[in-house]
């Protein structure tokens, strides 16, 4: 079909679904529906990871984004607004300017990396994925795990990330907890 191979058709379908639901996320009036559309967009991104051979990251995406962050956002929506009844204006006064800026950003970025990128000669932006041994892709998770605990690689960012997650946990509990007077009232 149109001279495309199967995986190309698949990619175009996934990209179209993801982008379509992303547009729904930023345009829907009902925030709850927007959050559901966001879950589909996350799923599309996870499938994109699979097409790139990053199965571990796709699984992490499913667990962290769809499983945790989406649910957190839905809880946030349910705790702040009576969304099912309230119909309020979803966009501020600069929506037109924002759309213009976003389109300009997309056009400029695409233009740059089709015409000028990469700076390295002899590599075209139409380059295909290098042919590698499938075992290397399978082995990437092992390499990733070793890199995380290797003192010459990412052990410091890894530990900082764990401390950051702990700080975020404690901080968010402290911020969202009711004040004592409120709790008594």
């Amino acid at each position, binding site marked *: 079909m149109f001279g495309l191979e199967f*995986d190309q058709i698949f990619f175009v379908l996934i990209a179209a679904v993801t982008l379509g639901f992303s547009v729904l996320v930023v345009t829907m009036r009902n925030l709850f529906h927007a959050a559901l559309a966001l879950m589909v967009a996350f799923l599309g991104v996870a499938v*994109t990871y699979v097409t790139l051979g990053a199965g571990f990251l796709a699984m992490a995406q499913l667990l962290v984004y769809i499983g945790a962050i989406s649910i957190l956002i839905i*809880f946030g929506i349910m705790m702040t607004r009576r969304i099912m009844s309230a119909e309020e204006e*979803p*966009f501020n006064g600069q929506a037109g300017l924002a759309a213009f800026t*976003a389109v300009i950003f997309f056009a400029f970025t695409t233009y740059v990396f089709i015409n000028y990128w990469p700076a390295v000669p002899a590599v075209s932006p139409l380059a*295909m994925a290098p042919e590698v041994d499938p075992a290397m892709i399978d082995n990437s998770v092992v390499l*990733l795990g070793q890199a995380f605990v290797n003192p010459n690689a990412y052990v410091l960012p890894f530990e900082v990330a764990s401390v950051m997650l702990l700080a975020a946990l404690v901080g968010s509990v402290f911020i969202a907890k009711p004040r004592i007077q409120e709790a008594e009232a």
Partner: protein
Amino acid sequence: MIPMSWYLIFSAALFAIGLYGVMARRNAIAILMSVELLLNAVNINLVTFWRYRTPDRSVGLAWAVFVLAVAAAEAAVGLALIISVYRNRDSVIAEELDLLRN
């Protein structure tokens, strides 16, 4: 086989949509959702460069995992702030949160 530029254009489009959401939405939670779209677009870029340029090293994957961790922390703290602001000001509309204006 999918050309590298397809992934990059897809990622740029996702980023542009998220950018629009951050700039145009009024509800703070909607802005937070748009930020998640931005982070996803960045992650697609990282994984694409890993697969097409350095499949023998896990640099792109490692940073994508870090972005994932930061996104989780950001969502938790952001929503806690929004809930706290809603409790005090009874609003999550970003324009109405102008306590520091005067």
